């Protein structure tokens, strides 16, 4: 089964086509929409599973829509980094399931909007899947737009005016960054005459003048850094992620931000292979920005009382880890950074889904108001505690090994300062998570009625608990994804000469 060639276009088109059919199936009743989305995501997950199995057994492979050989046609390329679609499918599936009750509960939202919510969610997931599997620069841009547009709209979905403001801010920043990407795609086409990534890489290597290539590199890097919310271009993130409906926050923080990272990895793949430019400067910039992101994200998070705002800031910190790992560009750090893309997705989704369940049941969203909730919603709070421990990187949870690898990379690259920044920055992060755990379990409730609240409904609890247990399992079996990414990282860094 895994060898059937058409899984690759299928995995991209299934969610997109599913989105097109969502309004159709909801003609009779809008309650069909979530089940339809769930079915579509299940099918996509099956395809994704086969693809991941195939890449694990035989390495990267391509699919040529229309049968045109690259660089004349578009190439879909599935490598180990593309395996992130497994997380996209998993979290997407769980987010749909979670939304079942959550969207109905949003009082501000007119009920007719809800089918469009599922359509947008499917489009967003499909866009992300397309983005990570494409091997063509312009195609990358097209999928980037699909996922960005749907993300802007999903942020605004809850219907409060702050949400629309946040969405507009996100849209403005996001559109500029997309334009930067498009501009540099244009420049790259101008100097190479090609759009296929692999072909571009070889042709850039044969150029006389490096200036346009450097310009394109800079713009691509900035564009994807905006998407990934690296300091100082993170300013759109906190509002957007905090105000979006919780399942969307999980998707945005866990996945959409990671798309920027995958974009950066693609850029590295091109430019390392091209070899015309010394990427040392870019690497240093990334490492520094990563370190600053870690500290600043943690610093701002400490002062937040709103639980979702706090989680949003912690995303900035964690993106800082990943970016630092990429920038250090040693074998260990790149492996650690890219696996943190997977792990952070799981962890942050756990946290946002659990936080959403708390808000759903109590209506409160600040830590002060939520005091004592650990007694009435024990399972949700256990999930959120596991997430908190994971994100700080305390063994044996999912966050630890990535941190270990990135720190190892810092010492390997002979930049021990960043190793320290990483390890002690994590402690900084812990300060605010311990506040959260204290509030849930060990402080007297401000609102006595909070002790009477029921545990989250099953459709919300099950995804949360599943993700939380994955945080633990990925911590203990953490070597498996690390070993899986290893060949890809080695291939990425091979042009550097080992």
């Amino acid at each position: 089964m895994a060898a059937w060639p058409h899984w690759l276009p299928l995995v991209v088109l299934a969610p997109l086509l599913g989105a097109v059919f969502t309004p159709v199936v909801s003609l009779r009743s809008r309650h069909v929409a979530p089940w339809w989305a769930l079915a579509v995501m299940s099918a996509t997950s099956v395809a994704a599973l086969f693809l991941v199995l195939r890449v694990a057994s035989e390495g990267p492979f391509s699919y040529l829509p229309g049968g045109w050989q690259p660089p004349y046609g578009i190439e879909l390329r599935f490598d180990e980094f593309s395996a992130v679609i497994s997380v996209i499918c998993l979290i997407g599936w769980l987010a749909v399931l979670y939304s079942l009750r959550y969207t109905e509960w949003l009082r501000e939202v007119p009920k007719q909007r809800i089918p469009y919510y599922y359509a947008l969610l499917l489009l967003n997931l499909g866009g992300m899947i397309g983005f990570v599997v494409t091997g063509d620069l312009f195609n990358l841009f097209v999928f980037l737009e699909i996922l960005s547009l749907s993300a802007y709209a999903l942020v605004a979905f809850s219907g409060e005016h702050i949400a629309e403001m946040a969405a507009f801010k996100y849209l403005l920043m996001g559109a500029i960054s997309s334009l930067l990407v498009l501009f540099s795609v244009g420049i790259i086409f101008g100097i190479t005459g090609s759009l296929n990534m692999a072909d571009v890489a070889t042709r850039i290597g044969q150029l006389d003048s490096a200036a346009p290539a450097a310009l394109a590199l800079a713009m691509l890097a900035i564009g994807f850094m905006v998407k990934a919310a690296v300091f100082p271009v993170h300013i759109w993130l906190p509002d957007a992620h905090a105000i979006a409906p919780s399942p969307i926050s999980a998707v945005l923080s866990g996945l959409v931000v990671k798309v920027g990272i995958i974009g950066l990895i693609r850029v590295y793949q091109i430019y390392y292979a091209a070899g015309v430019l010394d990427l040392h400067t870019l690497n240093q910039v990334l490492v520094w920005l990563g370190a600053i992101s870690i500290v600043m994200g943690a610093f701002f998070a400490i002062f937040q009382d709103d639980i979702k705002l706090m989680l949003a800031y912690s995303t900035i910190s964690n993106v800082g880890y990943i970016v630092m790992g990429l920038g250090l560009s040693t074998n260990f750090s790149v492996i650690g950074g890219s696996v943190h893309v997977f792990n952070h997705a799981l962890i942050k989704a756990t946290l946002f889904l659990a936080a959403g369940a708390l808000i759903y049941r109590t209506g409160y969203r600040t830590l002060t108001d939520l005091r004592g909730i650990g007694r009435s919603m024990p399972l949700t709070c256990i999930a959120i505690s596991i997430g908190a421990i994971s994100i700080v990187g305390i063994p044996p949870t999912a966050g630890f090994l990535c941190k270990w690898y990135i720190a190892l990379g810092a010492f390997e690259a002979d930049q021990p300062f960043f190793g320290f920044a990483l390890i002690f920055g994590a402690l900084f992060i812990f300060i605010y998570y311990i506040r959260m755990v204290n509030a849930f379990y060990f402080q007297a409730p401000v609102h006595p009625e909070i002790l009477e609240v029921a545990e989250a409904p099953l459709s919300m609890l099950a995804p949360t608990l599943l993700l939380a247990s994955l945080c633990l399992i990925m911590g203990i079996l953490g070597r498996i994804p690390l070993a899986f990414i290893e060949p890809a990282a080695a291939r990425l860094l091979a042009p550097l000469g080992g």
Partner: protein
Amino acid sequence: MEVTDIRVILAPAISLLCAALVFLAGSNKHWRRFWMLSAATLKLGVVMSMLPGSLQGTVYTWGMIEFTPGIGLAFRADALGMFFAVVSSTLWVITTIYAIGYMTGDEHRVRFFGFFALCVSTTVGLAFAENLLTFFLFYEMLTICTYPLVIHDETPDALKAGRKYLTYTLIGGAFIMVGSVIVYDATGTLSLGHPGILSAELGTRTLLLIFVSLVGGFAVKAAVMPLHGWLPSAMVAPTPVSALLHAVAVVKAGAFGILRTVYNVFGVDLLEDIGFAVPLMWIAAFTILAASLVAIFQDNIKRRLAFSTISQLSYIVLGAALLTPFAATAAIVHIANQAFAKITMFFVAGAIQRTTGKTNVHELAGIGYRMPWTMGAFTVAALSFIGMPLFAGFITKWYLSLGALESGEYWVLAVMIASSLFNAAYFLPIVYLAFFKAPPGTQLRVAEARPTLLISTLVAAAYVIVLGTTAEVPGMPFSLAQAAVHFVFGM
């Protein structure tokens, strides 16, 4: 001889399972007690069943999944680890009995016992850790698992103490991680199964960085001054927790980490060459004296015990830093000696508090007339700390002094003597108050603590005497310590 044996992993797994069962049992106290007691006994049995083999030099190992190339979740019960495991699992049984009595009627018992079992699980995991990464893993888990125990009462004081505890220990943990990363980067291994994995070729700068990170990190939990600040504040915890923290799990994890660093990461020879141990020796000696001095002026019993603990732990550090076989023996056996004596004292303090409500030293006048057995146990522990022959503490002091002579650091003897005097100065007044300073008219009216509290206290006290009298009897923990020393010094 190395043998792959599932018992190595079974021991921590039993406690882990027990924690799960306790949480599942919920508020059903009979099941909870049943699980706690049977798991504690079962684990003691498992650990003890490895003892004979271990004494003959068998090393039990069990490897699991790999984390990073060459380093995985792996367990290895060598003599040093076995020693620590035997001590902690013996104490688990005793403390469990005590805790069941002590916590009766408390609000959050499920949480308490669940995390209690988790702590013990991680402690044994720590003892059997094959490499620094596994060690670190359990070390951090221990930090997290003890947090709910420290802030058990949920008062603002407790929360503050908990925050302080976490701040200290997590920063320490970060240093350990830094150290481990550098070690791995420099050598490509993190194994704790050799007498030293580093070599002088790495250069003094790297070695110093590793030494400071690892020893500094472990010293936080071992409460070496000036990193001891968390320990007296953590006294707000319930007494069985204090007993566990100060006698078994947390502080000993730190001390054990220092032993591992000195003996298995650096190795005695390398440390002797580069001379990093000398400042450590001074710091330890300073801690022994300064903490004793502070303890004299504490009126709260538990605070006085806390400072005594700080002082006592530095015996272990000092023993390790002296780098001679005798001193090493002292350091290792002191893990057990201090554990049993200090746990006795905490049990006594807790029993007095639960029975009479008294928490300060000056209120203890005449308590010996009311609780003679309890105070008798206290006296045994006090004598042990002072270093009377026949009691456990004597063995430590004896071997430590021998070690000092062996290495030519004669000033250590003076520290020993001064420390004994200080110990006498802060423990004997309590004994004196209890038995000889009764307010006029006090009569011998025995109203002892609950049997669960009393029995466990007496058992712990009995152990103090047993450890003190059977040092040369083969098959006792002491011979394990000697086996460990033989391995470390290549004898």
